[in-house]
């Protein structure tokens, strides 16, 4: 199979979940980083020729197909590589949990880029206690190491990626949720992922990048 090409800024951010899937599944890919100085021109060209229909990255190129919107990219790869559940019922559950994960992400990220200290307080005090309980319930009823069925789906990659971002800024949020905590640390202990993180190839999170910037 020809390698897919991913285009994005050199940050995990909206790319993280896609790369997590590709790395964990050992699917080869190319990464074409966007230089910030060149972005306005790239955006304009992409809008004009239709390869960036919403003027945004990440973008995936697979042969003649140019795809944007991180979740559309994720679903495309999930379909292609058998990570969308074993049947239509499981596929529906993947979609349902994907939306719940997106709701958590939206609530958590609301102030993230504008008032980070307040965002972290909100995540600890209200956002994560509310949403964490939903996923604890889902894992309890499911009774496996995965959100849906007995094997990994794209919904797992979404949740693990998000938990990684949230525990980076607020490490203790998983403590009240033993199943969720066990689920997360089991996933992160995949030998392939451990090797990936040790390889130095991993992109920085926005939080890590932000901390490295001069104080404004």
């Amino acid at each position, binding site marked *: 199979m020809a390698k897919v090409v991913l285009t994005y800024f050199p940050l995990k951010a909206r790319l993280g979940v896609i790369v997590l899937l590709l790395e964990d599944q050992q699917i080869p890919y190319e990464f074409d980083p966007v230089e910030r100085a060149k972005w306005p021109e790239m955006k304009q060209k992409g809008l004009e020729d239709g390869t960036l229909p919403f003027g945004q990255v990440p973008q995936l190129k697979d042969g003649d197909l140019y795809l944007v919107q991180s979740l559309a990219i994720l679903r495309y790869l999930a379909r292609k590589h058998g990570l969308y559940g074993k049947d239509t019922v499981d596929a529906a559950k993947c979609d349902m949990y994907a939306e719940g994960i997106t709701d958590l992400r939206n609530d958590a990220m609301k102030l993230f880029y504008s008032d980070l200290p307040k965002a972290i307080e909100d995540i600890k005090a209200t956002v994560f206690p509310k949403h964490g309980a939903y996923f604890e*319930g889902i894992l309890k009823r499911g009774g496996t190491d995965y959100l849906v069925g007995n094997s990994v789906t794209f919904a797992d990659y979404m949740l693990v990626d998000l938990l990684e971002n949230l525990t980076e800024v607020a490490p203790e949020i998983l403590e009240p949720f033993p199943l969720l905590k066990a689920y997360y640390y089991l996933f992160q202990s995949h030998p392939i992922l451990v090797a990936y993180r040790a390889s130095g190839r991993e992109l920085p999170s926005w939080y890590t990048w932000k901390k490295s910037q001069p104080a404004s």
Partner: protein
Amino acid sequence: RYRRNKMAKVQITYFPFKGRQAAFVLLLEDQQIPYDYVPVEFANWREVKQKGLEDGTLPFGQIPQLKDGDLYLVQSSAIVRHLARKHGLYGKDSVEAAKCDMYEEGITDMRNDAMKLLFADITKAPEEIKKTVIPKHAPYFEAILKRGGTDYLVGD
């Protein structure tokens, strides 16, 4: 039509307004797929929510909910996708399915921008939506339709 009538009807549970059920009700009506509708009165909602959280039929404590046989599904986009998959409305192949997903995300972005304004100040929202949301997002869909050249967002 004979085959459709043999399928058990899906059942929708939601408040008595369009809200988050509108998209999939539009699908069901336009495709003439029979369904049952169970309205939830606001006075009963807290009890319905509590029970749903406990028994797992409302995993996020929210409606709309779709019941399809033994499957209890929440999250309006997940419901739309399930019905799309079931009734051949997800594009003709995986490339078209990807385009459906891509445009769905763009539509959701537009919806979120509009809803943010509606919840902030319902009287000012129409003007704000006209001034900001439409000029930003509508050109994307104008161009998508222009490049596609059909009466539909994806394929024919």
